């Protein structure tokens, strides 16, 4: 077990990192460790627990901004926002249970580190599209800030984008200002039954190309739909394609009607209202269908929406044990495979290489995550550039070293 520092303020964080840099002691940065098994396994002798840096510092609903300490639980932030009818529009998933952990242990810092995004990604963006500014300690032990506290800003480099999805390898954040948005008054979901994957991608493209402002596009093949906690979906005994519409009451009704008319030739249709609709999108968001069994390997593939079913067909051809469902109109594939010594990497990465995108190994035992690239390998020029960027923040390579790739 690594020895863990538990700072309560920014100067403590700077002290620890300055010491670690001077002594060349790698630090394992974490909050509540809800996603500790995502990424390459850590071998650091020391850990920096940032979960005590929590609390909402400022919230101005009319300015659409909130400043928080990154150790704040996403659930606590969402509670505050809900009281003002606002939300985190990027819909951060609660992934802890995927690795056997409890629910609601994810922090804002974790959402930033992993650049989390839910089903609304294609319309509203990811964490990267909502982090406006931050204060952090770099791997040099220096306190610095970047970005701003207003929703529109192009002053200096957009370092907030860079720390999103950097898995804590660049800096330890101590304060973050995020953009928040009004929550929709009503949500409904149009379901289409019985489509195969390719046909579903087409239906979702038709919906996404319509002016009806859809905010969720997912496809659950029959085996996955059967696992749903929503009766209409679980009892369908066939594939279910889900199309979400959000907005004011009158608008949602009118758009669902228009979408049903637009999509009527694809198959039988149904409509989910209020709770059924939100439960379904929560399952999709949190990848609930693949929580169990936990020994199955889990991949997350991001590709062009229409390429989703093509990539899957290639994988299924060699891995008949594959189970998958689609989000983001087909562009996000959650893929579950039986455990095996190569985690299915060759067919998965091979299929993605052909069609563009990237595949991340989300769940596998530590040995596999130590030998197989967890994140999609980059061409040499890009990998070198990434290493230089890492070095520009963390020249001693002490912040989560090797979490993303060797040296990063």
């Amino acid at each position, binding site marked *: 077990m690594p020895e863990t520092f538990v700072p309560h303020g920014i100067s403590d964080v700077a002290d620890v990192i300055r010491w670690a840099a001077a002594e060349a002691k790698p630090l394992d940065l974490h909050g509540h460790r809800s996603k500790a098994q995502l990424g390459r396994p850590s071998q650091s002798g020391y850990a920096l627990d940032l979960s005590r840096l929590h609390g909402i510092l400022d919230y101005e609903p009319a300015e659409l901004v909130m400043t928080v300490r990154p150790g704040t639980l996403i659930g606590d932030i969402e509670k505050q926002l809900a009281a003002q009818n606002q939300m985190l529009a990027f819909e951060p998933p609660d992934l802890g249970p995927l690795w056997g952990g409890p629910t609601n242990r994810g922090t804002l810092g974790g959402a930033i580190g992993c650049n989390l995004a839910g089903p609304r990604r294609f319309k509203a963006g990811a964490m990267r599209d909502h982090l406006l500014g931050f204060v952090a300690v770099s791997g040099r032990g220096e306190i610095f*800030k970047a970005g701003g506290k207003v929703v529109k800003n192009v002053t200096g480099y957009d370092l907030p984008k860079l720390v999103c999805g950097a898995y804590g390898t660049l800096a330890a954040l101590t304060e973050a200002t995020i953009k928040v948005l009004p929550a929709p008054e009503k949500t409904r979901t149009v379901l289409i039954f019985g489509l195969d994957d390719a046909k579903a991608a087409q239906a979702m493209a038709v919906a996404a190309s319509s002016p009806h402002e859809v905010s969720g596009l997912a496809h659950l093949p029959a085996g996955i739909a059967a696992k749903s906690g929503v009766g209409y979906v679980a009892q369908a005994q066939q594939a279910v394609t889900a199309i979400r519409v959000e907005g004011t009451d009158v608008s949602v009704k009118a758009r669902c009607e228009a979408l049903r008319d637009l999509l009527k030739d694809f198959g039988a249709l149904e409509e989910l209202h209020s709770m059924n609709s939100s439960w379904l999108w929560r399952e999709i968001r949190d990848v609930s269908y693949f929580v169990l069994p936990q020994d199955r390997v889990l991949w997350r593939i991001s590709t062009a929406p229409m390429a989703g079913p093509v990539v899957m067909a290639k994988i299924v051809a060699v891995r008949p044990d594959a189970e998958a469902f689609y989000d983001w109109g087909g562009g996000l594939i959650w893929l579950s495979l039986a455990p095996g010594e190569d985690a299915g990497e060759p067919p998965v990465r091979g299929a993605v290489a052909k069609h563009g*995108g990237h595949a991340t190994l989300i769940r596998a035992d530590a040995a596999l995550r130590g030998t197989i690239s967890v994140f999609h390998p980059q061409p040499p020029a*890009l990998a070198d550039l990434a290493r230089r960027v890492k070095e520009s923040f963390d020249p001693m390579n002490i912040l989560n070293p090797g979490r993303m790739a060797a040296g990063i």
Partner: protein
Amino acid sequence: MLMPAPEQEIIAQRLELIAALRQIVPGEGVIADETSLRAFECDGLTAYRQLPLVAVLPSDTQQVSAVLKLCNERGVKVVPRGAGTSLSGGALPLADGVLLGMGKFNRVLEIDWDNRCAVVQPGVTNLGITRAVEHRGFYYAPDPSSQIACTIGGNVAENSGGVHCLKYGLTTNNILGVEMVLMNGEIVRLGGKHLDAEGYDLLGLICGSEGLLGVITEVTVRILPKPATQRALLAGFPSSEAAGDCVAKVIAAGIIPGGMEMMDRPAIHAAEDFVHAGYPRDVEALLIIELDGPSAEVDDLLARVKAIAELCGSTYLRVSQSEEERLTFWAGRKAAFPAVGRISPDYLCMDGTIPRKRLPDVLTRMTELSEKYGLRVANVFHAGDGNLHPLILYDANNPGELERAEAFGADILRLCVEVGGVLTGEHGVGVEKRDLMPAMFSETDLAQQERVKCAFDPNHRLNPGKVFPQLHRCAEMGKMHVHKGKIAFPDLPRF
């Protein structure tokens, strides 16, 4: 504005450099005579002019790569340029630098309807993308007011916004991938047609990097289905406080309009005199609120916004009854800059963002500054996102007036930072706001940004003199002075 001192030994090699560039880009692609170079001497920030050493107009990525590699090896500076519409001097040439014009990269390469994206060359204009996809009901969302002329490559470099960006985002939220050439000539691809990155979000970093990190040679943009309906509302108020209150209440009511613009009395009058949009002259502040989306929703929300405006004391309310009328509402706002140009020989357009609730303070302080400097100011304001565009009126023919206008502008931007805002919301730092960066960022903050620059261009050859007030040698910046054994083991709770 002091630019890096021209390197005489580079200028002395001009002829060799021209010959070497002609090896890479044959024919008319290398421009070396003074008359032709004049076309590149400034961008949209016309107060600053400089002839480049030579201009080169490559026509493919390989040529861009070879030019950058050559310049890097010879230690020659390079300034990339799109359409040259930057308002912050991002494309201002250097006397000892090559100007790299990307105008020949003007083709739409692919429109992928089902994946709702388009692959375009960087010299395609912003509006050109919408023109290429509108016949099937799509458009490209960011719409900077220079959209007829400005190019997508420049939009990426500046992370351009527009009046609709509160709802639809800036450039960075609307692109999926780029092909980019680094200063050493290496060609890299970031992103593609998929979302998010496999490693660091370098695409996010490149957006808004003002041409200092790489030269964009291809962009994949997202295209969106056009909203079914757009309707606008004009609301006049007896004070900017009342108008600001209305904006806050609209947002607090959960409504994000497609556009929400504010103009102050001088801007209203200038615009009305120029385009006769039918704006009321007897109000202190005018809001144009546009709602777009599904028809049922637009009608519903418009009624709510109207009720809020009334509650906030609006003395003038008009809802567009036709598409023609909606466009007339916008005509005045869109012509605000030229309208001000009619009433003053010259003007400076500033671009700060403030927390919206500070607007009344900022306007009051601006009036005081206006008196102090003896220069008039008109304000247009992207009210939804707090992005303020004060237009400072001056006459460059009067000795000292440009300097006074610049000092006034700098005071306004410092004021924006002081109230919790930022120096630039969408125009970029460039040379214009370069020396104000320390008002917003500490030396440590700036040093970290410079180190990122060093990761891309360790010799500071790409667009130097922009964004950073001082240039430091990368080798110095990268050094870390560690005191092994001298830093105590941190005395913190441990488990």
